[in-house]
């Protein structure tokens, strides 16, 4: 069944599918198909797909490749669903073929399971809180999903509070559910975020950049003043410093970091560090 499907797909696409390896780092558009490394040998120069269909072919030589955001499996190939640059990460432990994903930029958040996000409590109804996370629906958060919460010992959460939690259920058919404990029952940093500080919104790409390991921006910001900062994968950042002036400076710096090159950023930081 895979063969007629892939033939139809290729004829519809109108052009030969490119090998994923050759497109790394380039911009791909939705609708493009990418070949995985093992399939390039099968494609002849004419492009006609005439592979013998054998039952146990490729069973041993197939490499497990993980399909990341922006890509979808389409038969034997990868179908691009978002526009952006194609990236690849080699597998760490040697098993599997690594991860492919599309690095795209957007501001609107779509809930994904396992993401840590900052939400705003909008309603308390019975045993659950409705939390706005910036998606199409508010997420539900049970009052028992806090560390040390029991039926008698309810957490102190008011409407309008900020919550840092992670999604346990997030798909496009149901309303997302989030919790503020991890699988062992510990809070691990999640829960209600304190009263002061400033919440602001940035693009999702900037959050991913700031959360990357060894991010220079965070280290440089840390040298300026003491601060508390929380990043939500839904584009929300909460910042708190000693005074309002410092908090505003930090918020403006983080928002501007998106559009600055690293040289400009170093200039600004050095100017602030002097003053």
């Amino acid at each position, binding site marked *: 069944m895979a063969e007629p499907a892939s033939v139809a797909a290729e004829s519809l696409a109108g052009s030969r599918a490119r090998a994923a390896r050759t497109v790394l780092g380039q911009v791909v558009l939705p609708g493009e198909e990418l070949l995985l490394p093992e399939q390039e040998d099968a494609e002849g120069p004419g492009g006609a797909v005439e592979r013998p269909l054998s039952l146990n072919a490729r069973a041993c030589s197939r490499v497990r490749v993980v399909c990341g955001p922006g890509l979808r499996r389409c038969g034997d190939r990868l179908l691009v669903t978002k526009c952006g640059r194609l990236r690849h990460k080699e597998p760490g432990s040697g098993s599997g073929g690594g991860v492919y994903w599309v690095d795209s*930029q957007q501001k609107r958040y779509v809930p994904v399971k396992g993401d*840590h996000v900052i939400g*705003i409590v*909008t309603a308390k109804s019975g045993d659950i809180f409705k939390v*706005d996370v*910036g998606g*199409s629906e508010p997420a539900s958060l049970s009052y028992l999903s806090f560390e040390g919460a029991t039926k008698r010992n309810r957490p102190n959460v*008011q409407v*309008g*509070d*900020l919550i*840092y939690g992670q999604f346990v259920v997030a798909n496009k058919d149901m309303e997302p559910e989030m919790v503020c404990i991890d699988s062992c029952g510990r809070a*691990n*940093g*999640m*829960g*209600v*975020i*304190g*009263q*002061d*500080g*400033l*919440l602001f919104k940035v*693009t999702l790409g900037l959050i991913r950049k700031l*959360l990357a390991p060894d991010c220079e921006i*965070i*280290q440089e910001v*840390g*040298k*300026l*003043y*003491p*601060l*508390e*900062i*929380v*990043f*939500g*994968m839904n584009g929300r950042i*909460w910042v708190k410093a*000693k*005074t*309002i*002036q*410092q*908090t*505003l*400076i930090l*918020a*403006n710096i983080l*928002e*501007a970091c*998106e*559009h600055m090159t690293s040289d400009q950023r170093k200039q600004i930081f050095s100017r*602030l*560090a*002097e*003053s």
Partner: protein
Amino acid sequence: MKETPLSNCERRFLLRAIEEKKRLDGRQTYDYRNIRISFGTDYGCCIVELGKTRVLGQVSCELVSPKLNRATEGILFFNLELSQMAAPAFEPGRQSDLLVKLNRLMERCLRNSKCIDTESLCVVAGEKVWQIRVDLHLLNHDGNIIDAASIAAIVALCHFRRPDVSVQGDEVTLYTPEERDPVPLSIHHMPICVSFAFFQQGDPNPTYLLVDPNEREERVMDGLLVIAMNKHREICTIQSSGGIMLLKDQVLRCSKIAGVKVAEITELILKALENDQKVRKEGGKFGFAESIANQRITAFKMEKAPIDTSDVEEKAEEIIAEAEPPSEVVSTPVLWTPGTAQIGEGVENSWGDLEDSEKEDDEGGGDQAIILDGIKMDTGVEVSDIGSQDAPIILSDSEEEEMIILEPDKNPKKIRTQTTSAKQEKAPSKKPVKRRKKKRAAN
């Protein structure tokens, strides 16, 4: 979609910042955001950007029969629409309150002020008059729609050219733009709306006001005062909403500010119109396509925010002049979980501590007894043992006096509090700021 709710934390922060005369983008209380006016290829089409708020204005005309009771006057028609791309909360059918309010204000500002000479729009009395239609579309909502819309309306009207008409006896000839140049409308004056946001902060009299509120400030404001004025300092419309009580001198003060602002904006408009006129006459390129820079990404563009660090500088200099040699201080962030970092302070996590953080900011001495990295303190209070005893030392009763050391590998240092106690007399409320700066700068 529902509007993103405003969290308590944001509201408090904004109100506190306003009390300290600080705005989110670094503006002063009476500052407007940058206004940018660009024209399209057709006459009467313009886009006005007030910061990130964007309004598109388009003027068109048509020959119709006049109203029965106004046989010699032309007809003006204004329409403001909130496009769904302006904000997620704008949906067809959902925005009625705001829409009605804005439309009414636009009508009063432009129609009742008689800024356009409607008699000149008459072609044949009782039979044919011009109907001028002004359509305004809000493309992006970042606060203060009414100001941007009024500027867009008046700019579009000034820019518009209607076809020329000549009447000879019973014959009326309507010339196409190719036959005769189109004629501008006859505009007496340019009314422009200026918005003032009021914040009460618990007093019956609103004590703080801001000019040109942006979207966040509009959410937390208590009342809005809109004054429509022209450059001759004539008030065309004045409207106060939100149920706040305004004193007479507050209204007078606002009208003076509005006079100044309107003069500046009118100058900007005239300059923009003149530039566009010049470009068209010289045969250069004009239109929206020209106002977009090529080879440059402008979608995620941000304007420079003036960050005021002036007072921080002088305070920091004081400390550095009198400071002791700095000890080593670690500045690497402590990563609790992916997404949560703590930098510097060796205290308990202050999440969930509601009252103490506020108290510390008010009492300047509150922070003196606290917090430096890696300090080993045997008891909670040892300030009196070391350093100058004559200076009064203020201790707060916050629970953070009990130091909890999180980095046991740091060298125990000399207690830092003695340095700050000597400076208690000067501006205590800024002390914590200065100490931090010194440490970080010494890095």
